[in-house]
């Protein structure tokens, strides 16, 4: 099969080529300028954070040997040669992991309840009063802008060491994060059922129960499950500031250089997080009607 490509007259094609060069050249110089600004910003950042390339290469090796040490027991044998010795504290760690999951669950549940209550005043289609809306939105914004570990630090001093500050910190952060998502769902509902129920003379509670809730429930549950996944990760480090869960033991093991304990606890955390992610992802996809 023969094909012929039609060619343009030379003058015409030269003009086109010139035009193309000009356009591309303009874009190229813009990209170069952006790149220069970017590199300058990164250099400043590197200078501020005391990055030292020599130190980096030296430390890459150190990190490698750290990983290797994580894979060895105190007696110098690789961890997989003696699983009983590696996971010697399995019973204690399982209990702590259970506590971590409980902290995550209670924090998520409390946060979801508060976010549920706040999402209606924060939605413009259900709350005509701008001042109430403003107050609800700013409150939620504050709750989600402050990191949960900062809340935990403060609560540990107010409520004492233990899981209580952890739960409250997750609950407050969750209220802010979920409240925003919930109110966005509420703002996107179909208003026809709301008008229908309102026309029957229903009060606000009945209105939300029969017109709004059926439309938003699956979205709410899906976001709450997603929050639970995030909170399991957060709850695992709450112990770093004394707010309960497995974090306390992990912190101790890292600080005291109990290498095999560090790897054992990390593996337990990672496996738990992955299992929870898998289960909740299934449920979420089932809720939103997507194939799992």
């Amino acid at each position, binding site marked *: 099969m023969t094909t012929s490509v039609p060619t343009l007259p030379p003058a015409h094609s030269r003009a086109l080529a010139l035009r193309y060069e000009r356009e591309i050249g303009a874009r190229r110089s813009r990209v170069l300028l952006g790149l220069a600004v970017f590199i300058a910003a990164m250099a400043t*950042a*590197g200078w501020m954070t005391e990055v030292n390339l020599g130190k980096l290469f030296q430390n890459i090796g150190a*990190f490698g040997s750290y990983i290797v040490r994580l894979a060895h027991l105190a007696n110098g044998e690789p961890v997989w040669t003696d699983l009983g010795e590696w996971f010697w504290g399995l019973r204690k760690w399982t209990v702590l992991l259970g506590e971590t999951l409980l902290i995550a669950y209670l924090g998520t549940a409390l946060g979801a309840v508060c976010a549920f209550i706040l999402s209606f005043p924060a939605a413009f289609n259900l709350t005509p009063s701008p001042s109430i809306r403003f107050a609800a939105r700013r409150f939620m914004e504050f709750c989600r802008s402050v990191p949960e570990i900062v809340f935990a630090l403060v609560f540990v*001093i*107010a409520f004492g060491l233990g*899981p209580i500050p952890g739960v409250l910190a997750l609950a407050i952060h969750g209220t802010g994060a979920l409240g925003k998502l919930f109110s966005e769902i509420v703002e996107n509902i179909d208003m026809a059922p709301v008008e229908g129920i309102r026309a029957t003379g229903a009060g606000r509670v009945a209105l939300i129960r029969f017109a709004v809730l059926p439309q938003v429930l699956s979205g709410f549950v899906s976001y709450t499950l997603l929050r639970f996944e995030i909170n399991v990760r957060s709850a695992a*480090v709450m112990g770093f500031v004394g707010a*309960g869960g497995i974090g306390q033991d992990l912190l101790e093991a890292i600080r005291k250089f109990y290498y095999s304990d560090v790897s054992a606890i990390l593996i337990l955390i990672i496996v738990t997080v992955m299992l929870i992610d898998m289960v909740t992802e299934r449920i979420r996809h089932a809720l939103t009607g997507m194939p799992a």
Partner: protein
Amino acid sequence: MNAPSSSSLAGHTASGVNRLREDALRELPHLRTRYADAFRPVTRNGILGVMLAVGLLALFITGFAELGFSFAKMIAGLDQLGKFVILMWPPTPGTMSRFLLFVHALGETVAIAALGTVLAAILALPFGFLAAKNVVANRIVHFLSRRLLDTVRGVDTLIWALLWVNVVGLGPFAGVLAIMCSDTGALGKLFSEAIETANRRPVEGVLSAGGGRLAAVRFGILPQVLPVFASQLLYYFESNTRSATIIGIVGAGGIGLHLSEQIRTLEWQHVAFLVILILATVAVIDALSTRLRSAIIGSRPAAT
């Protein structure tokens, strides 16, 4: 069924609404017989739902008991918290030198976030391509790179920070490496998803023009996904500014060190000042990156 139509014109006065309600209630038996389906008795799914709700509620209540919540403790704690809040007013850094110290630490925090995000992106890029089905067809490579990214993602930034402090010592460098590690997992996953949803046609075009596989990736896929990558990068920079404020708690540089120190020494006015400073910075970065993001995405409507 014709009674409400006349009274609905009575407007939204209280008596009008009440009349509506009475009319509606009077119609209820009729409706029940006419729309039997809508008033159906309890279904199996309904029972399951109620049982699930009861179980979750039971766990909720026993959970609180299990973790040692008590009414007296809550009251005492809230009382303390109230005192702290009162002591926070007015927020102030105290001295000028401390103010400068805080601002410097804040700059360090932003720098940690920026550098960590960029390094993570550089590391995540090859993993993103390896984990994308349409670039690497090998299922084993695909599976392994996915699991590796999942594992890295499963470890919290704070844990990474603690590990790196152990390796490179206290300081912001450990923070950079921590952000880099935890975000490589997240960004790698997002990158691979963006690559998988890229349009196939440009790739086929390059291949049909005689381009190799590398050229197909460079000219067929990369131009489509780069704006998406850039926008995700900015988003992560935003969220990393938040995480970089806390990694100082374990000694990995930035403002978190000062924050935890001031909280532990009960200097509530300084704490309030620091929190406001952090919130303002995060808000500014949010606004900036939102504008940049819309500029990048808007300039080239590519695959999302």
